[in-house]
């Protein structure tokens, strides 16, 4: 069997085993989706066709605010309600070694006997925006596999974290007391993208002041300006102690109902796929460019001292890059 066909039938088998609940097959399928443009078209199409029902929740915010702890609480509560929950935890990779320390599991200790949860760690692999292509494709996979809630936790870099909005139906921004005054709360970037704001660690001494800053900014319409018809919610939690978690769940579910009522739930799916396709196309092109540029020096050396021909080299390399992108 040619390599392409074999890969297609392997992945098809993996996908059907994953659909029947085989955790090992799910783990492998997710790995195959780390480079989604290499997935055979029939399998890719089937994943896309099956996806579209899951509620995707993005959780973002500064490092140490308590995102992982909040997620572990959410998972427990959704499991109690009988919903299947998948978590995609994104951590940064080192720009120096390319390696990564993925530590979100540490605070998300899952019940190893419960088949209804799935946690997968992903590194950013140097991509800006924190939400890597791999994670976006995994959202589609978990959705296709029938998970009711897909929670995406993104690197808490703060003000540059806006890619998550395109993948998530509901964006939860987590902050905590003691990280800045009202000016911080008004700054552009991550603080603008929330549908729900969580002031975690609300048992700390400065919590009341932080809460007032945030609710002031919210009242003035400075936070969560993405959707003019939804008034962002502010929730106080102490995730370690389990306080406020049910308030957070009701806020999240209220937002979901709002999206469903207005047809916005489906619109979010479209925008998530716009981002997916854009990233895939960009990645393919980048690979083509890399391939073509391996001939850069030779070509230029041949023509460098001639009066013409360099422009031709430019056009040739660009053409070769495109063709390498499409025929790897």
């Amino acid at each position, binding site marked *: 069997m040619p390599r392409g066909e*074999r890969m297609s039938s*392997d992945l098809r*088998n*993996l996908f059907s*085993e994953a659909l029947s609940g*085989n*955790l*090992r*097959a*799910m*783990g*492998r399928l*997710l*790995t195959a989706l*780390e*480079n989604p443009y290499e997935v055979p078209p029939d399998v890719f199409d089937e994943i896309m066709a099956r996806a579209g029902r899951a509620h995707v929740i993005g959780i973002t915010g500064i490092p140490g605010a308590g995102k992982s702890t909040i997620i572990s609480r959410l998972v427990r509560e959704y499991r109690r309600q009988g919903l299947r929950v998948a978590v995609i935890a994104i951590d940064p*990779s*080192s720009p*120096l*070694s*390319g*390696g*990564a*320390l*993925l*530590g979100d*599991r*540490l605070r998300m*200790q*899952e019940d*190893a*006997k419960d088949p209804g949860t*799935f*946690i*997968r*760690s992903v*590194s950013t*692999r140097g991509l800006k925006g924190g939400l890597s292509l791999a994670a976006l494709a995994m959202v589609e996979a978990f959705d296709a596999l029938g998970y009711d809630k897909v929670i995406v936790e993104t690197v808490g870099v703060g003000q540059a974290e806006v890619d998550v909005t395109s993948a998530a139906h509901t964006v939860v921004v987590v902050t905590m007391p003691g990280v800045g005054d009202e000016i911080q709360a008004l700054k552009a970037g991550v603080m603008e993208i929330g549908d729900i704001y969580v002031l975690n660690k609300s048992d700390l001494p400065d919590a009341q002041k932080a809460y007032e800053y945030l609710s002031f900014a919210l009242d003035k319409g400075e936070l969560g300006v993405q959707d003019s018809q939804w008034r962002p919610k502010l929730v106080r939690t102490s995730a370690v102690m389990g306080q406020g978690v049910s308030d957070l769940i009701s806020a999240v579910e209220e937002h979901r109902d709002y999206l469903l009522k207005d047809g916005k739930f489906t619109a979010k799916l479209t925008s998530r796929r716009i981002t997916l396709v854009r990233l895939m196309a960009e990645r393919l092109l980048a690979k083509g460019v890399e391939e073509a540029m391996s001939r850069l020096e030779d070509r230029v050396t041949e023509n460098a001292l001639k009066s013409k021909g360099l422009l031709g080299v430019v056009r040739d390399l660009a053409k070769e890059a495109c063709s390498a992108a499409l025929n790897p």
Partner: protein
Amino acid sequence: MESMLSLRSTKERPYKVIVAKLGLDGHDRGAKVIARALKDAGFEVVYTGIRQSSEQVARAAVEEDADVIGVSILSGAHIHHVKALIEKLRELGAEDIPVVVGGTIPVVDVEELKKMGVKEVFLPGESLKKIVDLVRRLAEEKRSTGVAKG
């Protein structure tokens, strides 16, 4: 050229390693040093933390589709926990993920651990470079043989 290509493909999908502490054992300095060394060598390290059950570690390895599992044990209960881990991996159809063990393991137990299927046992004083090199070799072996298996 061949080596450059393989470097590039590693860069695209780095090896993924689970570093875990099994059982009632809070001594995690060694595990953290190993985790950091592997990260600096370009691995994606999933650190699961202390007091993990064999079920949790096996489940994490399966969900993460890990290339290697490294467990650190300083409690003396290595035979019991590693046996349980390897059984659990088999139950989940993940016996192909290589397991290495490090910690205060009496020399007389090394053979028994290896008989269970442990690929390597690192005793106190082992060099980081040797550990990283061996984990890389095991990961390479697993990737080259394990792709077609579903």
